């Protein structure tokens, strides 16, 4: 920031500015939940427990990356759950057909297949002018239907998968599970791309004001297409990781994931009205939802109440979000040039 700005702006205190950022309040809530739960049941923060927590969040957190990009553009991708299911099963089938398949190749397979599925969405939205909600609700059905048709009551079991793949899933580097590392790498790479590369900023621009984006020389159609391709590719990668994590995949793998992913992004401060949000926030959102779920289990909340509590917490999170962001907007509000 320049001196000019600092000298003139009635700068709100650093603390206030920091608190105005969604991510900070989220991290605080996260810490409260973590420490609060651990205070009641210290095992909650035990090594094995944290590991499980992270592993649980990985798949959602990964898919959230793509979803965030799509949401930033003021679109939505409901089909991610079906993409995860289809790639998980097909990559498993690929392993059964070629047991010696190198793991990077399997990951690549998932990414490419997912990207192809994402391209279908992208073409429908960018060129066919089909609203994203309609297009991806449609492909949610179509991709799942294809999965049912391909799988047809079959199942891929851990026993059928090459041991190398399974040990990749269970392995860890310096105590951090491989899957978590992989997802972290993807999140950080995309976080940097969205935050500080011209191409990444264009996603914000498109969602913030598509017309202005066109006037600024951004190819909105192409951005839309690539956004959906990225979302699909990441969901495809998540499909392979799903297989690695759970070892068992049937036709319904990943069902219902889409709403969890959107919920995580929204809790993480990504606006479904486009243009607002960060991957860091979305990742924290995913973590927060995962932690709350685990905490409810650890605190022995009756199973039958867990879903209701989670729903209520989700509503609370988005309500707080809107109130906070309104207050910030008001604070930034009126300022006439002298």
């Amino acid at each position, binding site marked *: 920031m320049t001196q000019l700005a600092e000298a003139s702006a009635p700068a709100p205190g650093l603390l206030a500015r920091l608190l105005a950022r969604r991510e900070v309040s989220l991290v605080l809530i996260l810490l409260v939940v973590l420490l609060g739960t651990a205070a009641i049941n210290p095992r909650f923060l035990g090594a094995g427990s944290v590991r499980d927590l992270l592993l649980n969040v990985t798949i959602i957190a990964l898919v959230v990356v793509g979803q965030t990009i799509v949401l930033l553009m003021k679109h939505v991708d409901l089909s991610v759950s079906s993409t995860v299911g289809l790639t998980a099963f097909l990559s498993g089938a690929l392993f059964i057909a070629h047991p010696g398949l190198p793991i990077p190749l399997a990951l690549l397979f998932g990414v490419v297949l997912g990207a192809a599925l994402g391209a279908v969405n992208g073409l429908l939205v960018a060129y066919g002018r089909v609203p994203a909600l309609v297009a991806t609700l449609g*492909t949610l059905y179509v991709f799942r239907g294809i999965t049912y048709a391909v799988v047809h009551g079959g199942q891929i079991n851990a026993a059928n998968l090459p041991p190398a793949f399974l040990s990749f899933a269970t392995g860890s580097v310096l105590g951090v599970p491989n899957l978590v590392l992989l997802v972290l790498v993807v999140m950080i790479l995309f976080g940097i791309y969205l935050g500080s590369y011209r191409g990444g900023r264009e996603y914000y621009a498109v969602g913030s004001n598509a017309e202005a984006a066109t006037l600024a020389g951004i190819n909105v159609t192409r951005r839309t297409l690539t956004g959906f391709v990225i979302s699909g590719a990441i969901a495809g990668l998540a499909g392979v990781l799903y297989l690695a994590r759970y070892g068992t995949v049937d036709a319904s793998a990943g069902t219902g994931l889409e*709403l969890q992913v959107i919920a995580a992004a929204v809790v993480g401060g990504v606006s479904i009205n486009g243009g607002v949000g960060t991957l860091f926030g979305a990742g924290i959102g995913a973590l927060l939802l995962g932690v709350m779920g685990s905490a409810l289990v650890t605190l022995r909340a009756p199973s039958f109440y867990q879903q209701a509590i989670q*729903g*209520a917490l989700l509503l609370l999170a988005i309500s707080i979000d809107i109130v906070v962001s309104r207050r910030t907007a008001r604070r930034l509000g009126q300022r006439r040039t002298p």
Partner: protein
Amino acid sequence: MKPAPPAPSSLVARLRGLLGWEATIILLVFVALLAGALLSPDFLTASNLSFLTANFSEVALMALSMTLLVIVAEIDLSVASILGLCSSLLGVLWAAHVPMPLAIALTFVAGGLAGLLNGLLVTRLGLPSLAVTIGTLALYRGLAYALLGDRAIADFPAAYTNLGFGMVPGTQIPIPIALFLVLAILTTVLLHATAFGRGLYAIGANEVAARFAGLRVERVKLTLFVLSGLMAALAGVVYTFRFSSARADNATGFELGVIAAVLLGGVSIFGGRGSVVGAVAAVFLIGIINGALTIVDVSNEVLTIVTGLLLIGSVLVPNLLGRLRVARERRQPRGDAVS
């Protein structure tokens, strides 16, 4: 499904010009009926059609209120959860020996309250309804489990279950479908012939202008969310009696079917456009295609794919046709056009 024979296809174009998307859907309903009849002699029988239509009663009922909501550019993803919650509540009340009429009344109150909460969060806090109802989707389903847990209440009195299961005396029309048809007519009148309905289109197409014209946008939206909750409660009661079973997981996932039907019926997801006729026809179209495919033992997966393709096609095809028309007009040169 067989493609439409060539002669009707020009008819399709003519009808489309005449009546729009709704006519196309209605025509497709007849094509699907015809195709079903050709594929299986067991299809076009009164009893089969009667089973088949009874089967989508709940989706059809909820599609009515969803149509109104989508026309004002909102959405309610929580309807199936409200259905489950209301079904569970009805079961719990009945098991607690509450007289049935009172239990049903309380169920409607619960549905209305559930809709009210959605509506308040949307209109008072200004939250997007997609996000709100994803939240209440979990909340209401969770409340259903909290109410009923793993229990299933089944011993509903025959007088009531016969209502859910039976036919209108002297016909093969299932009672829930008869109820639906009555409500569909009422909704059509409400949407297309009252001041309230006129306002809905304006609100959906341009909320700001509607507010500037003195329409009570917030109150209308709140009303529609409550209506959606009430309709889901009605669907819950129908479901409970039709299956004589109150369970917390009743109708899980129905919301996507409802929304698919509404969108396929030509209601614009951006609001301001659509009709009850279209949505009703789309409910029947999906149901009939479903029934026809089932009776020739085509598996469930194909049906899933067909539903998705129909949904995408319902927006894509008109869009592409529109573009073709524009391109054709552009090709007929107007003076010395630049390339």
